[in-house]
């Protein structure tokens, strides 16, 4: 047998030193204070010149390093966060280099006072900082923004621009002012006589100039006397923000040089492959390491328990076992041959899709929690000319990001180093401290780009698994990598949901009573995610209740919470009502919106009218083709932050039942301003594909307590051939800040395809995905 897996810290550092001397491609040195860093890694590095503030370092050659505290997972935050800093800093955009912020420093330093107070008067004030969602303070960063150095280090809730904009703009402005103060002091002139542009400071009357790089070391030692007086630019003064900027991470992504978590290599590193019990709440009963001990490369085995639910927001995953080997493929091959017996509680093994669905349907028959009760619903039904009733359902759905869960962890007796793509490094730092007993101040995260995200805790206990495995192998860097099949076990799911909607229509077909009952798993956000129909579409008598059940599948965020399912229910039902009333679905929606007194009513109507015009709504289509319209919004029930759009989907269904999304027209508001409209367009395009998959293909089913579909052969994802040939996006300005772009856009693909199928085939399907239904017609 090979030597023991362990190398001690001294040996490790010796290996690091050796590696520095013999640097070869693909063999990387860890980023530590005592180790050289590697090309193209984007994790935090200690600056070589004094930083201006925690976000900004300016090198003598004018290259500006901007620290990014959110994670780039394809949404463009690497670029948009940098744009917000650069706009105020007035530095040369071609000399900007983003770098991840340090989660370790965040554990040791407090945020500057000037970042703590949101300027301005909320969502309707163009001069202010908007209305951050996570305004309350929370040390762990779970339910709010901590006061620690980088404030919010999470990447979730479509909030990176919404919550971070004001203090990122302030960070740029604070640095700019100090650069100006330093130049003023050097030249002994009033600071008011200086201007800053494109990394150059000019004193117009004397003709003197200096560059940011030349003055930066002085600025670093020049405090601002009154940072609380610094203001941020409103959108009408933006010059970089609001313009389409290509994403700064693209050049490395087309050459294969981007460093994802899976690409991290360290001297002395071993690989771990993992099998966790496929039934959530299950654990390892026994395993036989002796059966594989002598296989090539195999070093050791680690059994780990169900991760402490306190570290996974209360969600219960499962216990498992990891095999450690010299290469990952050796570890995986050995693990596949290792006999493992699982300990599965019989009540959990009894769950399957059919009995869970029956439970949900039974729950909505029982009294639920009444969330909204307006007017007299029963009286409304009593005098209705027509009753329309429909039950919709949506399946369990995972994120299925492309990069399988992984993390590289080195635990020594006084320090933890973690190389990971992570949407919530503050939570991971907390997990590392809890698991190892090493304080958070000694936990170092080296952040990598993520190969897809779609919800941090949704991506499950990848960090916790890796930390537990490495903690059992102190002194050895362990790179844990899940198989695709494990990634489907390690993830949370959007909860399976049902909804029953019942409307009473008057003689003209307008709704006079509406009852909505939704059923979802209790901790799945579903029933608690807003589904307040009347605030969008006018109904005088309305009752909404949510009906909670308890299942064992860990549920959580998935490109939003329950809203995508709820918009499917709402918009599908409005279509059904329009058809029942014999009215045009666009005009029907328009009238029901016009009857409301919503603060953003005009914006909602603009979205509908614009998209109807864009799509040539009402013009004839050949048989087999249909259009469907829908409203999409977040927050439009109130007068705060909101995101409003409308879409028209043009869909064909062949007589053989083949569905094609032919064209999507999108009318989308900008709010006071989009930071990077190019990224917004990409987010909309991507989410059209996302919700097309939800609508047509995707469902996770449960058998004997476990998820059945655990790779892309059983869990289908659309390819190029299903991409809509035509996508038209048009923006319109509105007078509030946006609630966010990263999720719940294009939810209407679900209702749109459903209504088009109905128009073409006469068949109405209310349970997703449509692809499982017989869509043929003659």
């Amino acid at each position, binding site marked *: 047998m090979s030597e023991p897996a362990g190398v001690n810290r001294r040996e490790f550092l010796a290996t690091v030193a050796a590696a520095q001397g013999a640097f070869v491609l*693909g063999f990387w040195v860890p980023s530590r204070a005592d180790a050289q860093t590697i090309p193209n890694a984007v994790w935090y590095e200690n600056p070589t010149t004094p930083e201006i503030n925690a976000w900004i370092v300016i090198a003598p050659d004018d290259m500006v390093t901007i620290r990014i505290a959110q994670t780039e997972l394809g949404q463009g935050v690497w670029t948009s966060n940098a744009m917000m800093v650069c706009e105020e800093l007035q530095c040369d955009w071609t000399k900007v280099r983003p770098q991840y912020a340090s989660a370790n420093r965040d554990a040791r330093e407090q945020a500057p006072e000037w970042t703590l107070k949101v300027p301005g008067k909320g969502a309707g004030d163009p001069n202010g900082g908007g209305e951050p969602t996570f305004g309350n303070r929370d040390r762990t960063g779970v339910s709010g923004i901590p006061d620690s150095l980088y404030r919010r280090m999470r990447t979730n809730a479509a909030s990176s621009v919404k919550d971070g904009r004001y203090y990122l703009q302030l960070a740029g402005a604070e640095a700019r002012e100090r650069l100006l103060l330093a130049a003023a002091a050097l030249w002994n002139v009033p600071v008011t006589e200086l201007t800053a542009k494109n990394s150059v400071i000019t004193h117009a009357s004397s003709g003197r100039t200096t560059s940011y790089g030349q003055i930066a070391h002085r600025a670093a030692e020049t405090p601002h006397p009154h940072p609380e007086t610094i203001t941020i630019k409103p959108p009408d003064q933006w010059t970089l923000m609001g313009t389409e900027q290509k994403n700064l991470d693209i*050049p490395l992504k087309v050459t294969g040089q981007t460093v994802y978590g899976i690409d991290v290599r360290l001297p002395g590193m071993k690989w771990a492959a993992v099998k966790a019990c496929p039934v959530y709440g299950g654990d390892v009963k026994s395993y036989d390491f002796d059966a594989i001990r002598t296989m090539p490369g195999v070093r050791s085995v680690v059994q780990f328990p169900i991760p402490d639910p306190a570290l996974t927001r209360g969600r219960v995953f499962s216990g498992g076992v990891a095999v450690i080997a010299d290469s990952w493929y050796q570890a995986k091959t050995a693990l596949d041959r290792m006999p493992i017996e699982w300990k599965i509680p019989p009540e959990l093994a009894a769950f399957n899709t059919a009995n869970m669905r029956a439970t949900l349907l039974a729950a909505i028959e029982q009294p639920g929690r009444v969330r909204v009760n307006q007017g007299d619903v029963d009286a409304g039904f009593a005098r209705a000319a027509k009753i329309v009733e429909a039950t919709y359902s949506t399946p369990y759905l995972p994120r299925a990001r492309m990069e399988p869960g992984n993390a590289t962890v080195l635990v020594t007796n006084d320090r933890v180093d973690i190389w990971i793509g992570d949407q919530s490094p503050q939570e991971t730092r907390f997990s590392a401290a809890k698991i190892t007993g090493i304080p958070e101040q000694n936990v170092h995260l080296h952040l990598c780009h993520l190969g897809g995200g779609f919800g941090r805790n949704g991506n499950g206990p990848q960090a916790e698994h890796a930390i537990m495995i490495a903690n059992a192998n102190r002194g050895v860097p362990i790179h844990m990598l899940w198989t695709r099949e494990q990634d489907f076990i390690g993830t949370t799911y959007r909860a399976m949901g049902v909804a029953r909607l019942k409307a009473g229509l008057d003689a003209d077909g307008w709704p006079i009573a509406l009852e909505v009952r939704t059923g979802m798993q209790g901790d799945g956000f579903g029933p608690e995610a807003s589904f307040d129909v009347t605030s969008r579409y006018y109904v005088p008598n309305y009752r909404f209740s949510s009906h909670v059940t308890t299942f064992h599948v860990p549920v959580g965020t998935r490109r939003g919470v329950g809203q995508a399912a709820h918009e499917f229910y709402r918009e599908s039902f409005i279509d059904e009502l329009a058809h029942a009333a014999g009215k045009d679905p666009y005009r029907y929606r328009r009238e029901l919106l016009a009857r409301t007194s919503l603060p953003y009513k005009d914006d909602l109507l603009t979205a509908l009218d614009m998209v109807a015009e864009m799509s040539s709504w009402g013009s004839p289509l050949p048989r087999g083709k249909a259009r469907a319209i829908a409203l999409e919004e977040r927050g439009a029930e109130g007068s705060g932050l909101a995101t409003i759009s409308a879409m028209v989907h043009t869909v064909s269904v062949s007589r053989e039942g083949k569905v094609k999304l032919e064209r999507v027209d999108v009318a989308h508001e900008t709010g006071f301003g989009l930071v990077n409209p190019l990224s917004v367009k990409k987010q909309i*395009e*991507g989410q059209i*594909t996302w919700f097309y998959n939800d609508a047509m293909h995707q469902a996770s089913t449960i058998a004997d307590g476990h998820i059945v579909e655990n790779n892309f052969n059983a869990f289908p994802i659309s*390819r190029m051939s299903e991409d809509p040939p035509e996508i038209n996006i048009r923006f319109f300005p509105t007078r509030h800040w946006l609630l966010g772009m990263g999720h719940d856009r294009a939810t209407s693909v679900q209702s749109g395809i459903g209504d088009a199928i109905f128009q073409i085939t006469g068949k109405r399907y209310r349970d997703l995905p449509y692809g499982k239904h017989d869509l043929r017609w003659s």
Partner: protein
Amino acid sequence: MAFELVVNGTSHTVDADPQTPLLWVIREHVGLTGTKFSCGIGQCGACTVHVDGRAVRSCSVPAQTAAGKKVVTIEGVSPDGSHPIQAAWKEFDAPQCGYCQSGMIMSALALLRERPTPSDADIDSQITNICRCGTYHRVRQAIHLAADLMKRTAGRA
């Protein structure tokens, strides 16, 4: 057992079980990490490389079958990201998370070499890589632009 593998024009002596998938030999033994692992069963195409000019899903091919053949990975497309297909990808800002894009580019490059002016139908039938971010719309535009740029480059040469 050691065997020879030529990757991006450089010969490597690989000491691995010859049944090890080509993907893992490229990533772990040769040390080129631009080629990605995602599904492990040849479904998604994130691991696509060229073997003698043909697009191959390297997670599902034993490395030994590539011995004596020319393997090209994303790192071998150009030394500096200047290949027309990379220029076209950049022009449309095509990647989002980027994880699938190495494989996507290698698949598209194989298509363009076979059909220098691919139709949308060609793209639909030949590019079957999965992108979870939904970059298909820009990838299609980028393939058409790459076709133009590659012809222009060839014309100059």
